[in-house]
């Protein structure tokens, strides 16, 4: 084995070094998944999107997730066929291109286009690296290894908002650095991996790829996202074309299932869904994703809104409490579920903790971020945020293990990708629906609330203060609705986990 310290560049198919480099790519892609949440408002200002029309920003979040989801089902099988590293490299280039487009954006449409491409690039890296892990580990150690990789990915996610927030807070155009750094990093990583990429991949299989299935699934999701996108939340919590887009998405989904039953190499063996353990794990993962995405976007937006008036760095630091809980929970969940041989219990407890924390978050008011009266430096808000993250982290490993135990060795790559697909579907659909409903609710509450016109009359100041007070109340009202829905979704996840998940299969 060559000594990797001799040169940063890879000399041979040295698997730990290879895994480390691939994991570094995964880390940056994960960093990027949530990097915009705290930087969203400065990005929108640069793209001339007014804060009283946040609905226009929805595609910045959903576009990335859609890109991610469109490639994820095919990335696993593609890497089975063409070699993990080569597929990894191609999508890393797409990720870098998307970053370049976003970094140089002056309009909202360019930001969205860049984010879709970034999502498509970054999304492929995750299943490829997970499949690499699944190649190397089996049984109980796989649960631990997956927990560790999920943990690493979650560390990336944890630092993502903070990274984005800190860079965005440096200057008015600071957020552009987020994406310039990606370009540089991807270039360096490609250089280091180049010898490995050039090497002929081993152990590849030549099964045909179900492109039609992938296309049907991607189209169904794109239509559903469009259907749920509330462009005009003043009048409707869903999109204007909902009445035809939603049924069309369902039809495409049915076609997808039909196709998967007949395809020689289906993306996912739909017969697995007859197994309640499998369907349950998929649903829990999706519901956890929905809860997480809602928290990820709306906590920073609330923090940066006029009610708390934080800058992106402060908002990211607030969110960090939640983000820190996730990897702690993920590692803990992986270890404890393996040790206690209970996927069901740990996952259900995790979701229950998260649901409770979300319900508490829904009750935030103006005093939520004031120091606690007991005189401790810790606020209740900190505990609530950490608990939400911890709960959502706890379920990751047991739910993953419960599902992966039900698929064959050959399907591991696809199974790992499917888990993340379900999580992201939950994020995409959950976020779209909750955002639309939340904004609609806000518009309903403020329908009669008009700011006073500037005047030199003595009562102007008083009327303005009254308006601001009512506006704050309306904003809290909106967040109450949003987090109550999220809590209900996560609670459903807890019930499903308790009812369906299976204990780990006895290992070697």
């Amino acid at each position, binding site marked *: 084995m060559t000594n990797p310290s001799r040169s940063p560049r890879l000399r041979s198919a040295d698997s730990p070094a290879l895994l480390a480099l691939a994991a570094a790519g995964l880390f940056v892609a994960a960093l990027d998944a949530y990097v915009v949440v705290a930087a969203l408002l400065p990005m929108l200002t640069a793209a*001339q999107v*007014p804060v009283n029309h946040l609905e226009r920003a929805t595609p910045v979040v959903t576009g990335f997730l859609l890109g991610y989801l469109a490639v994820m089902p095919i990335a696993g099988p593609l890497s089975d066929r063409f070699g993990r590293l080569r597929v990894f490299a191609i999508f890393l280039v797409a990720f870098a291109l998307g970053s370049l487009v976003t970094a140089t954006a002056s309009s909202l449409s360019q930001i969205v286009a860049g984010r879709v491409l970034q999502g498509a690039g970054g999304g492929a890296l995750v299943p490829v690296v997970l499949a690499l892990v699944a190649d190397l580990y089996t049984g109980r150690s796989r649960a631990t290894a997956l927990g560790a990789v999920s943990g690493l990915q979650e560390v990336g996610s944890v630092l993502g908002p903070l990274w984005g927030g800190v860079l965005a807070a440096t200057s008015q155009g600071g957020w552009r650095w987020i994406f310039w750094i990606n370009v540089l990093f991807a270039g360096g990583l490609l250089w280091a991996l180049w010898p490995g990429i050039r090497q002929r991949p081993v152990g590849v299989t030549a099964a045909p790829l179900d492109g039609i299935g992938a296309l049907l699934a991607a189209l169904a999701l794109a239509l559903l996202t469009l259907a749920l996108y509330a462009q005009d939340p003043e009048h409707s919590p869903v999109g204007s074309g909902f009445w035809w887009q939603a049924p069309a998405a369902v039809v495409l989904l049915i076609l997808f299932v039909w196709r998967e039953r007949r395809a020689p190499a289906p993306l996912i063996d739909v017969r697995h869904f007859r197994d309640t353990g499998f369907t349950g794990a998929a649903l829990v993962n999706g519901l956890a994703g929905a809860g997480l995405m809602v928290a990820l976007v709306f906590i920073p937006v609330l923090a940066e809104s006029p009610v708390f008036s934080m800058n992106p760095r402060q908002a990211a630091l607030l969110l960090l409490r939640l983000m820190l809980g996730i990897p702690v929970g993920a590692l803990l969940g992986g270890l404890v579920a393996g040790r206690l041989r209970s996927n069901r219990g740990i996952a259900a407890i995790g979701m229950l903790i998260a649901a409770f924390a979300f319900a508490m978050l829904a009750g935030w008011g103006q005093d939520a971020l004031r120091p606690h009266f007991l005189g401790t430096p810790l606020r209740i808000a900190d505990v609530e945020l950490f608990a939400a993250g911890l709960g959502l982290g706890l379920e990751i490993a047991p739910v993953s293990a419960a599902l992966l135990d039900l698929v064959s060795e050959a399907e591991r790559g696809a199974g790992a990708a499917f888990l993340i697909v379900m999580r992201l579907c939950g994020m995409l659909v959950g976020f779209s629906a909750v955002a639309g409903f939340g904004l609609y609710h806000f518009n309903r509450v403020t329908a009669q609330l*008009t700011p006073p016109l500037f005047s030199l009359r003595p009562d102007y100041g008083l009327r303005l203060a009254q308006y601001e007070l009512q506006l704050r109340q309306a904003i809290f009202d909106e967040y109450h609705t949003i987090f109550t829905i999220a809590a209900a979704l996560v609670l459903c996840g807890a019930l499903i986990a308790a009812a369906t998940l299976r204990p780990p299969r006895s290992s070697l």
Partner: protein
Amino acid sequence: MSVLRRLRRRRMALGVVSLLCLLAGGCGSPPPDAAALLRQTSAHMNAVRGFHFTLAIQGAPPAAIPVQSAEGDAHPPDLTTRVELAQNGVLLEVNVIVLGSHVYLKSFTGGWQELTPAEVAQFFDVHALFDPTRGLFSAMAKTTQVTRGGQQTLNGHPTWTVSGRLEAAQVHDLLSVARSEGSYQTTYWIEPPATLWRATLSGRLFDPTLEATITFDFSKHDQPVTITAPPLG
């Protein structure tokens, strides 16, 4: 006699110009007379019954001039527009409809409200903007020191640029927040015979120490625009 001589002189001038054109490798059409082009464009634009416009302000002190940009459709003197305002570093959008003597506003939150003339007057006279006698297009005709610039393709349209100066007092009449001393630099992008695509106004418009620029873009000339009163409340 003098008419004949003038004609002959003009013909000679045309000959020289076409010779120059040939020497320069040929140009599509002879360059128009700048002042005449401005007058024709002013008259033509005042007669256009519907168009789309965008407005962008650069270099204005944000505390005094919160307006960053605006975009809308006009059917002079009526218009509908959304206006982006910067307040404490964040961007907010309001919508404005001008219909006859009525002015409607949809602010950051809440529905449409009708403004009283007194309320309108404390901002600026929106009726004046595209008014045929005192509005933007009639100000064009009052441009002094007119010089013709080069040919430019603007968003796919072949235009001539024409520059000149506008009296600050004139601008101040139209836009009361603008300073009224001295004069401002102005440039027009005109597609012959008389289509105005862009107009810019620059100088120390709002602050005696700050250079600022206002850019107007016009498109969809003579596109039918119907403006209706919004539902109040």
